[in-house]
Every structure is written in C-alpha cells, then in structure tokens.
C-alpha cells in the first residue's frame, strides 16, 4: 500500500495495541494476585508468633512444632495417605479395565453403562455421602477405612475411566491386532501392549484420583468412623472450634507438598513422552 500523508499521526494505531497489551498484562497480574495473595498471607502468618491472624508479632517455627506434636492430626494425615493410595490403586484398576471394556466390546447396555459411570462425577457429594451412609447402614456394615475407600473409589474411578477412554479413542486399533497376530493372547495383548500405550492417561487418572481422595471432605464425613478420620475431617473439626495458626502451618506444608506433587507429575509426563 503506498504511504499517503494524512492528518492523523501514525502512532495512533500501535498505541492502541500497546494499550491493549498493557491492560491485558494488568488484568493477568490482577488475577494472579487474587489467586495467590491469600496463600501468600496464609503462609506468612504460619510464621507469626501471635495467635491472631491479623497482627504480626514476630517470626517463629512454633506452629510447625505444634503440628508435628499433634498426634491426632498426624494420625489423620496417615489415614488420608493410606485411604488415598488404596482408593487410587482400586480406581486405576477399575477405571482402566472399565474403559477397555466399553471401548473394545460391543454389548447390550453399553451406552447406559457409559452414562451411569459418568453420574458420580456430577452427582452432588452430599447426596452421594448420604446414599452411601444409608447403604452401609442397611447392609449392617460398620463405618471405617473400608467404607471410606469404597466411597472414594465411587467418585474417583470415573475420572480414570474417562481419561483412559479419551486415550483409547486415539489408539490405533491395529495395535491390539498386531499383538494378537504375533501370538499374544487377548490378556497378554492388553497388559503388554495396550496398558503401556495408555500409561500417560493412567498416570493422569491416578493423579486425579489421588488428589480427589486426598482433599475429599463431604463423602468422607458420612462414611468415616473416628478411627479412620482423614486430614480434611480433622482440620474441619479444628476450624469449627476456631482458627489457629497451626492450621496455617499445616496449610503451608500442604502447599509445598502439592507443588512438589505437580512438579513430580509433570516430570512423569515428560518421561512418558
């Protein structure tokens, strides 16, 4: 286009872009502050010697010490870990084999099964908690680790199933046939070829299942006994009594652990590529 001398100065257009740039940067910064400032404050006050979360007194590690010395809290953390691990393993087994079943085999009721599997993902947790409680009560089953794990598996295995299913859709159908052709039985084809191909989805689903179980409160609330109380249950109980900087310290530990977990899962993803 030939340059035409006009009255309007040339800087106007770039300045519009720059303005947009600036406001977008500002907006992004604002969102980040909104998301992370509470966390930063929370962590900062975990080192505050005052019992109050509003006035800063002096730096201390005392609250971390308190967390460390709080027997019930540590027991709850241990319970949480056990429950999260066991329910993750079961969810992965159920979800992966379920996804394979729905993907590979055509049978009557497959579609309704698919819908039924998705229901726990959208069902309000409170409903699920109550219905599980009624179920266990009618079955005459005492509450404890088993019931909490059953509850957690119920809502977390669909996430594994969906993740694996998405991966299966993109998998070359000849992959299984190649394995069968080379002499693998259907079971060998599944374990030696299909599962390794699904590994990224299985890992993603497992991480999802673990996190869901780790911070679950409502379903656990209805299905747990005092002995199997998880960390969220214990923390919820403590918070009801009153906020305590010990909770800040606990949260800070959680944040570090979670961040470590995210880094670890990214590392796993990189490995599987």
């Amino acid at each position: 286009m030939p340059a035409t001398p006009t009255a309007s100065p040339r800087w106007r257009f770039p300045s519009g872009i720059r303005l947009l740039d600036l406001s977008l940067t500002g907006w992004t910064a604002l969102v980040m502050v909104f998301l992370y400032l509470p966390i930063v404050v929370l962590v900062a006050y975990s080192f505050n010697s005052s019992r109050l979360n509003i006035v800063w007194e002096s730096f201390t590690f005392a609250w971390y010490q308190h967390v460390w010395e709080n027997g019930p809290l540590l027991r709850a953390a241990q319970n949480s870990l056990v429950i999260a691990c066991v329910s993750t393993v079961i969810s992965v087994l159920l979800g992966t084999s379920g996804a394979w079943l729905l993907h590979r085999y055509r049978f009557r009721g497959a579609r309704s099964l698919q819908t039924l599997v998705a229901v726990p993902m959208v069902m309000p947790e409170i409903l699920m908690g109550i219905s599980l409680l009624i179920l266990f009560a009618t079955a005459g089953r005492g509450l404890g680790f088993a019931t909490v794990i059953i509850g957690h598996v119920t809502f977390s295995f669909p996430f594994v199933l969906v993740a694996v299913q998405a991966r299966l859709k993109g998998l070359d159908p000849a992959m299984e046939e190649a394995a069968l052709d080379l002499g693998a039985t259907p079971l060998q084809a599944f374990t030696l070829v299909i599962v390794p191909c699904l590994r990224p989805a299985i890992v993603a689903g497992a991480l999802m299942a673990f996190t869901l179980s780790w911070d679950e409160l409502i379903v656990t609330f209805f299905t747990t006994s005092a002995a199997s109380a998880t960390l969220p249950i214990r923390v919820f109980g403590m918070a009801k009594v009153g906020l305590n900087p010990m909770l800040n310290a606990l949260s800070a530990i959680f944040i570090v652990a979670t961040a470590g977990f995210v880094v670890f899962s990214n590392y796993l993803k990189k490995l599987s590529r």
Partner: protein
Amino acid sequence: MSAMVELRGVTKRFGGFTAVNDVSQQIVGGEFLTLLGPSGCGKTTLLRLIAGFETPTAGSVWIDGEDVTHLPPYRRPVNQVFQSYALFPHLTVAENVGFGLRMKQVGKAEAAARVGEALALVSLTGLETRRPHQLSGGQRQRVALARALVCRPKVLLLDEPLSALDAKLRRAMQLELKRLQRQLGITFVFVTHDQEEALTMSDRIAIVNDGRIEQLGTAHEIYHRPATRFAADFVGEANLLEARLLLQDADCVHVAVTGGLELTLPLAAWPAGASVALIAMRPEKVHVSKLKSPADFPAGAANIFEARIEEEIFQGATDFLVLLTAAGTRLSAVVANESALGDIFHAGDRVSCGLHADDLVIVPAE
C-alpha cells in the same frame, strides 16, 4: 502344487453388508499373490479372514491343510504387516521384533540371534535400541516386516504396507519385498489398490470387486487378457468399446464399435452366438503413425483407419494422445517419445492408426 491357503465358499457379512461373497480360492505355497481392488471391495476383509481377525459368516479357511476357521489369530501360523505398521511405541526396535518370539517363549539366546538375523535381512542392523518414533517411515516399515518375518510364518499377510511411503521409496520397497519373498520362499498375500504395485511384484493377481474375485492370473494375463470389464478398466488404462456384430465370415467377424468405427476380428475371439460384446484395447497397442496412403500399408493389413489428434499430453517418456477417428470413435493412445526432434505428434494433426487383431481383447458384455 499344494494349496498353502484355501478359502472354501467364504462369505462374510457385516450386518446387511456383504463384504466377501462366496469366495473359493487356493493360494499356492511360495507364491506372491496380490489381492487387487478398489477400496471397499472386500480385499482387506479377505486378508483379515486369513489372519483370523474376522470369522466367516459361511465357509471355511484352511492353512497348510488345517482348518483354521475358528482359530484365534494368535494360534494361526500367519503374520501380518499392518498398513499403519502398528509398532509398539513403548518398545525398542529389537523388542518390537522380538515380541512374537517372546510370546512363543523362544529361549533368550535363540531369540536374540533370530532378531539380529531379521534385522539384518531388512538392513536395519545397528538400530536395535531406537524407538519407533525415532525412525523414518521407511525404517518403520522395515521393522514391521522384520517383526512379522522373525516368527517364520507359513504365510505373510501384507495390508497395503507401502501406501504411507513416498513414490521413490515405495518403488525401492516393492523390489525389496519381491527379493525377500524369493529369498525366503514364504507365501506372501499382498493387498493393494495400486495396480502398478500389483503388476510389479506379484506372481499372481486376484482382481477383487464387490466381494468376489473377478479374475485370477499372472500379471501378463491380467494385463493383456482381462476377463471382465472391471478387470480391463481397473488395471492399466484401457479403451473400452461396445461392439455390435455386423457380419460374420468364415474366419472373422466384422463389428461396429461405439462411435461408428468398424473393426475386423478373428472369429475365434468372438463369443459364440453373441450379438454384442465389449472390446478392451490398451492405449499403447494403438499404433499411430504419420498420415500414409492406404497403399503404403502392408498387403492384407486390417483395422487401419485415419484419425485426428484431439489432444496431446506430454508425459515424459511417453505422449498421451486422444484420437477421434473419421467415423467418430474416440480412442486414447500412448506413443513413445523417442527423441525431441523425431516423430512428434501435435493436437490437430491427421494420423494413420492401426490395430492388431490380437491386441483386441473381447470381454463378454454383462
């Protein structure tokens, strides 16, 4: 010759669709047989029936004298090279090739030796520790081939294995496949829709159309003596002309083809008692020369006529001509481009054409 693979009255239906329709066929041990046909003709289903990925709706499949109709793929003495190669992404080249041996619980030392041999056979020695995604398309193809061959199958099934390669590589692989087949003496069943590929490699070609084998023969037979309209049309270029009987002599028939051109054929070639038939004629069999007077032709020459070149398409080694005869019949012809200065035809030229009666293939009208 004994049949390595035998299909007996095999039919395969998917719902209401008949993919394979009552095929009975023998595949001889040690031959390179190509199933050639357009997509959706049933050739891949035929292959899958032999591999065991499909069970026939009716009929039976025999391999080396054994009824395998109801044997699962992992119990059949055949291996397949897949169109997508289907290499296992989480295994190295050596592990991929060794997979079949591992399944058959071949001892470690023997397996390693056989994997090495198979890789040497497809010239991939040195790439043992690579993973499939680190290989080129051609290399992946070779791994897939080695993976199937290492199991020493009685029959190797190949499902359009060259379709993902570029033209040059495909050419090289065609020759290499043929060489491997000769060297190993294994029966190859090759599926393709590429007629050139089929002509290059096969001992015999089966033309598959609409779930049936329309013609089975050597490349020469298929090309020079197509048995059906479909075979003539699908393999190579062909002038397909409807012919109507005009007059019958003691030893020849006179016919008029589409457009009006009159030709003379030996009586023996004409289907007895038919009034119409189809004439198939390869474009390179239409002899084109500069316009000559009838006196210049050898005495007794038949099927000589004059035509005008409607179109001339340069194709490198050959020239493709569209001819319109004086009578109004349109023919395509291919002539060699012998030299840049020589006998070159141009659109609009008037030329003389001749057809040898033996080059005219009569296909019964359907």
